[in-house]
């Protein structure tokens, strides 16, 4: 069976997309408040950026959404599920994927295997067939490989397909991590500083990929990013956190003009490519 550039493999097998509603969540670690009464929504298909100074609680927010932290107060509703009370390994089944700020790839696996792990939830778990690698297990591997190859093509990482992730440059690792999340064929993707440590050229690539997955694959995207150029260009809406509180949310233009945001985060030279 030929795989064509005109295929749209992401159109089948993806869980339904829902609105994400974060409702009054508060999170604290032993008295230190990371998030205080934050509420926001993210509509299906939109790109929502979360910005804010270092330590404002942006990553904590993502961790709450994907089940790594459980907020003490509030709900995070995705469809009928309250994510605030769900273990993180259940999230992929609901179609939620994420990447990490400090790259949490499986360093001793090839790029291909990292991406194949993204397909984990789409594969049936049966240790016996796995051991024998007979027929069924092999077919399943091949089917999922096909999907993964589309991700590889999208992210232009063909040349490193069979390299160990640990040996790759930082920028490529970021790309692979995005690929791994994408391989899940999620409905909602959470990206934690996808462009940190990249030069303009690499950021352009990454922006292109994010737009591709958002517009072509139709994946709802929530991202944390410091580069205002990128944030203002590609996001539909921007949420601003400071000291664990939401101090503004709106379209890039609205946020750009918000005095609180300028004071806390942007500075005078805001909106520039810095």
């Amino acid at each position, binding site marked *: 069976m030929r795989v064509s550039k005109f295929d749209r493999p992401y159109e089948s097998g993806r869980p339904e997309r829902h609105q994400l509603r974060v409702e009054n969540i508060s999170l604290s670690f032993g008295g230190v408040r990371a998030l205080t009464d934050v509420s926001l929504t993210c509509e299906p298909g939109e790109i929502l950026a979360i*910005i804010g100074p*270092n330590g404002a609680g942006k990553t904590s927010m993502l961790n709450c959404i994907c089940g790594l932290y459980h907020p003490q107060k509030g709900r995070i509703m995705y469809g009928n599920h309250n994510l605030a009370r769900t273990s993180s390994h259940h999230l992929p089944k609901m179609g939620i994927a994420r990447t990490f700020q400090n790259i949490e790839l499986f360093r001793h696996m090839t790029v291909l295997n990292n991406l194949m792990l993204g397909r984990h939830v789409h594969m049936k778990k049966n240790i016996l067939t796995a051991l024998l690698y007979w027929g069924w297990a092999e077919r399943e591997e091949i089917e999922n490989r096909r999907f993964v190859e589309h991700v590889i093509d999208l992210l232009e990482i063909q040349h490193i397909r069979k390299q160990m992730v640990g040996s790759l440059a930082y920028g490529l690792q970021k790309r692979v991590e995005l690929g791994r999340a994408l391989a899940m064929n999620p409905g909602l993707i959470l990206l934690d500083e996808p462009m940190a440590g990249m030069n*303009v050229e690499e950021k*352009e690539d990454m*922006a292109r990929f994010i737009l591709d997955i958002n517009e072509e694959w139709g994946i709802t995207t929530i991202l944390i990013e410091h580069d205002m150029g990128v944030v203002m260009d*590609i996001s539909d809406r921007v949420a601003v956190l400071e000291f664990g509180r939401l101090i503004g949310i709106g379209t890039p233009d609205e946020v750009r003009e918000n005095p609180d945001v300028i004071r806390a985060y942007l500075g005078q030279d805001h909106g520039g*490519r*810095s």
Partner: protein
Amino acid sequence: MAEPLLALNNIEVIYNRVILVLKGLSLVVEPNQIVALLGANGAGKTTTLKAISGLLKPENGAVTDGNIQFEGKPIHQLDAAAIVRRGIFQVMEGRRVFEHLTVEENLRAGAYTQNNPLETRRLIQLVYDYFPRLKERRHQQAGYMSGGEQQMLAIGRSLMASPKLILLDEPSLGLAPLLVQEIFSIIQRINQEQGTTILLVEQNANIALKVAHYAYIMESGRVVLDGKPDDLVNNADVREFYLGLTEVGSRKSYRDVKHYKRRKRWLS
């Protein structure tokens, strides 16, 4: 021209005995200057810094060819500790501070080459002058500070060794715009007031070219372009691939990025 403070001559770096990372890389750092090293990820910038500071060995890397001269003397055979004693201090990417120590303990740890307690006190005061925020948090555990404060601490700690040359690896990584501006203006002040030479690796070409006296651009383990920032910002490739400017000089929108790239020429 006076002898350069640091000169890398044709160094070749190989990791794990087979992976060639730097090939025939040469660059020169003049005293009292800020020299920026720009380039994409994987171009070998961090490797270059590690080659200078002797930190390749722990990562199974080795300078297999060429030499590195510091104040006219070869240092590429020395181990990391000896290089620090010669006056080169590397501030690692990702703000590696001692998380369980307080700010002040971190600074004292940075002064381990100092034997004179008076001098140590003077240096701590100096660091606090540059980074008032650190003074505010002097008794706080470093691990609980925000990314920007940790970055400040990492730079401050490097000052404690009174180095002649600071190797600064991506000070802006993961920092909010306001903080980036703040840190870079401090870096510039340190360079001007202390006369400390700085070799700066940075992805944010915009700000790096603003503070640097000279810059090198690396691609695939080689220098492809070098020159004064003023010249470089006029180079078409730098403008397009490092500054994100369009032909007429306005900022390109990230929405309009193409799926193909123009070939780079790297001519100047």
